[in-house]
C-alpha cells in the first residue's frame, strides 16, 4: 500500500438536479447503517458519508482505487434503488491528492453554491463525528478531516471569503454595523410590513436590536408584526413624529409616491441632535426621497443600492477564493507528506513478511531433506536464517524510514515495492 488509496465519489448541486439529489441523500439514521455496511466490504478500510441538501459524497480509504470507486458507485445506486447507468453521468470521483483537495475545498466553502457560506463546515464536522463514533474512519481519514477543519479555519481567517454579506438583508445588517457598531442599543422602525422588511428586521434583531417600532397603513397588520417582533405598533399617522426615535428605518409600503421626504428627515435629525439615521428603502416604487442621502449623518440605501452591494460582494468573494486556493494547495502538499511518511510502516511490514515467508518455505524444504537433525540443530538453523534476514533488511528498513520523511519519500517507497514485488 504505497498510496493512501483515498477515493471520493459524489454528486453536488452543480452536477446533479435536485430531484436526483434528494433521492440520493442519506438521512441521519441511514448514514449510520450505510457506514456500517460499507465497513463490511473487505475492499474498504475506512469511510465517511457527507450528505447535505447540496451534496452527497462518500470518502473512503480502499485497497484499490478503481475497484473502490466502482464499489462506492454501486453501493449508492443499490442503496437508493437507482440504476447505475442513469447515475453515472452525475457522479464525480477523485482519488488521493485530488480527493484531499476536493475535501479541503468543500469544507472551506469554495465548492458551495454561496461561496464562503458558514454552514458547510458544520455539516462536514457532523459527518465526521458520526463516522468517528461508529469507528468507520481510521488513522488516515481522521487526520484528513482534522486537517480539513484547520484548513477551513485558516481560509476563513486569512482571506475575506466569508467577510461580505451576499444577501440583501445581510448586506443591510453589515451596513448598519458599519454605521452603528453595536446594534444592541439601537432601534429599528418598520414603515410598511413587507416580507423583505420583516426579514431584514429579524436579521437586525438577531444582531441585538432591542427596540422595534412598526407602522402600517392597516393598524392591525402593524400590531400583528409588532407582536411577532416583540415591538411596538404605531398608527401610520404617527410614524413621522416618532421618526427621530429610530436609528434604522426600513420602508416597504405600497405607496405610489415618496412618503418620507427630505424636510421630514431634516426635522428628525435635528431632534436627534445629529445622531445618524440609516434608511433602508426596500419598496418599489421607492418610499423615500433620494435627496435624503444628501443630508449629513443620514444614509439611504434603496433596493438597487443593496443589490449593487451584494453583487460587488459576490465578486469580492470570488477574488478571495483565489487566495484561498493557494492556502489549500499548500495544505494538500503538507497532508500528502504526512501520508507518505505514514506509509513506510506497512511497506516495511510487507517487505519483512515477504522475506519471512521465503525463509520459512526454504526451511521446510531443507528440514524435510534432513530428517536426521536433532531439535537443537533445527532451532540453530532457524535462528541463523532469521538473523540473516534481519541483518539484510536492517539497513533498508532504517533508510526507508528516514527517506520517507523527505520530499522524495514516495519514490523510495515505489522502488521498494517494485523491487520486492509487493503489489501483486
Amino acid at each position, binding site marked *: 500500500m504505497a498510496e493512501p488509496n483515498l477515493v471520493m465519489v459524489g454528486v453536488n448541486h452543480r452536477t446533479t438536479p435536485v430531484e436526483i439529489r434528494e433521492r440520493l441523500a442519506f438521512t441521519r439514521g441511514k448514514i449510520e447503517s450505510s457506514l456500517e455496511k460499507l465497513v463490511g466490504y473487505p475492499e474498504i478500510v475506512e469511510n465517511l458519508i457527507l450528505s447535505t441538501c447540496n451534496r452527497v459524497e462518500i470518502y473512503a480509504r480502499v485497497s484499490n482505487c478503481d475497484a473502490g470507486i466502482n464499489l462506492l458507485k454501486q453501493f449508492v445506486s443499490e442503496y437508493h434503488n437507482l440504476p447505475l447507468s442513469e447515475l453515472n453521468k452525475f457522479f464525480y470521483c477523485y482519488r488521493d491528492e485530488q480527493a484531499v483537495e476536493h475535501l479541503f475545498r468543500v469544507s472551506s466553502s469554495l465548492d458551495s453554491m454561496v461561496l464562503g457560506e458558514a454552514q458547510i463546515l458544520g455539516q462536514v464536522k457532523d459527518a465526521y463525528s458520526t463516522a468517528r463514533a461508529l469507528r468507520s474512519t481510521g488513522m488516515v481519514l481522521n487526520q484528513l478531516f482534522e486537517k480539513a477543519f484547520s484548513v477551513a479555519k485558516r481560509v476563513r481567517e*486569512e482571506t475575506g471569503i466569508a467577510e*461580505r454579506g451576499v444577501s440583501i438583508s445581510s448586506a443591510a445588517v453589515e*451596513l448598519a454595523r*458599519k454605521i452603528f457598531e453595536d446594534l444592541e442599543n439601537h432601534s429599528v422602525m418598520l414603515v410598511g410590513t413587507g416580507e423583505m422588511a420583516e426579514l431584514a428586521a429579524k436579521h437586525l434583531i438577531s444582531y441585538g436590536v432591542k427596540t422595534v417600532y412598526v407602522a402600517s397603513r392597516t393598524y392591525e397588520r402593524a400590531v400583528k408584526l409588532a407582536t411577532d417582533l416583540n415591538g411596538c405598533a404605531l398608527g401610520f399617522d404617527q410614524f413621522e413624529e416618532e421618526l427621530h426615535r429610530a436609528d434604522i428605518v426600513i420602508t416597504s409600503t405600497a405607496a405610489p409616491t415618496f412618503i418620507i421626504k427630505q424636510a421630514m428627515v431634516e426635522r428628525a435629525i435635528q431632534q436627534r441632535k*445629529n445622531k445618524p439615521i440609516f434608511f433602508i428603502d426596500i419598496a418599489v416604487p421607492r418610499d423615500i426621497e433620494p435627496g435624503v*442621502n444628501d443630508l449629513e*449623518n443620514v444614509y439611504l440605501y434603496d433596493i438597487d*443600492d443593496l443589490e449593487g452591494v451584494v453583487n460587488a460582494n459576490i465578486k469580492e468573494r470570488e477574488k478571495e477564493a483565489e487566495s484561498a486556493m493557494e492556502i489549500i494547495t499548500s495544505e494538500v502538499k503538507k497532508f500528502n507528506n504526512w501520508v507518505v511518511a505514514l506509509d513506510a510502516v506497512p511497506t516495511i511490514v510487507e517487505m519483512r513478511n515477504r522475506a519471512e515467508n521465503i525463509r520459512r518455505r526454504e526451511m521446510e524444504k531443507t528440514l524435510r531433506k534432513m530428517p536426521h537433525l536433532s531439535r537443537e540443530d533445527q532451532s540453530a538453523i532457524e535462528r541463523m536464517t532469521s538473523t540473516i534476514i534481519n541483518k539484510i533488511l536492517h539497513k533498508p528498513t532504517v533508510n526507508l524510514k528516514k527517506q520517507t520523511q523527505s520530499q522524495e519519500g514516495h519514490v523510495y517507497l515505489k522502488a521498494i515495492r517494485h523491487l520486492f514485488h509487493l503489489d501483486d
Partner: protein
Amino acid sequence: MGKIVFNTAIIGYLGASVGYFIYLVYRRPLVSTFAAGAVGVALFAHTVLIGLRSMETGHGPYTTPFEVGLFLAWLIVVVFFVTEWKYHIKDLGSFVIPLVFVILLFSGFLSQEVTLVEKSESQFWLTLHRTLSALGYAAFSIAFAAGIMYLIQEHQVKSKKLGIMYFRMPSLEVLDDLNFKVITIGFPLFTLGFLTGAIWNVKMQQGLLHWDLLKTWPLVIVWVVYGLVFFGRLFAGLRGKKAAQGAILGFVAVISTYFLHV
C-alpha cells in the same frame, strides 16, 4: 550612539507603517504581529534616545525644536498604545504610526545642538507648559487619525462604493466616539498648557505686551478650533463628519504652529 538609536527608531516606525498598511489591505495576521513588534522596538529605541538626550542636556526634552519633535512623537506612540489597549480599534496604527515616522524624520533634519538652560523659577512653568501641551498634541494626533478614518469610511458608506477599506475599518460610531474621547482629554490639557505657557511668559518678560504675536496667534486658532469641536459636541450636537473635519483642521493648525516655532 545617539545616531544608531535614532536610526533604529526611524526604521522601526517605517517598518511598522508599511506593516500596518499591508495589514490594512491584505489582513495577514503575521504582518500585524510584525508591525506591533516593530513599534515596540522603535518605542524602546525612542525612549533610550530621549534618555540619552536628557543626560546630555541635563534637562527634559523640551528646549529645542528637535527635542520637542522627539518628545511629541514619543508621546503619540504612548497615547496610541494606550488607545489600542483600551479600545482595540483596528487599523489605527496604519494612520498614527506613519505620522510618528514623519515627525521623527523631520526632527532628524533639525539642529541637534544642545542649548543650556539656566535653572530658575520660570523653568518650572516652562516644563509644565511643554509637557501639558505635548500631551494635548498627542491626543489631538489620535483625533486627527480617527478623523481621517472617519472621512474615508463616511465617504464609502455615503457614496455606496464599498471598497476594501469599508470592510477593514471600524464603524463610524466607534471612530466618532474615539474622536470625542481624545478631544475631551486633549482639549483641557492643551488649555492648561496654554495657560502655563502664558504664566511662563509673564514671569520671563514681566508683561503680556511683549508676547511674540506671530508665535501666539496660531495657538489661539488651535484653541478656538478644538474649543468649537469640544463645546459644539457638548452643547450643539456637533458630531460625525463635522467633528472629524474639525479634528483634522485643528491638527493642521497644530502642525503650522510647530513650523512657526521652528
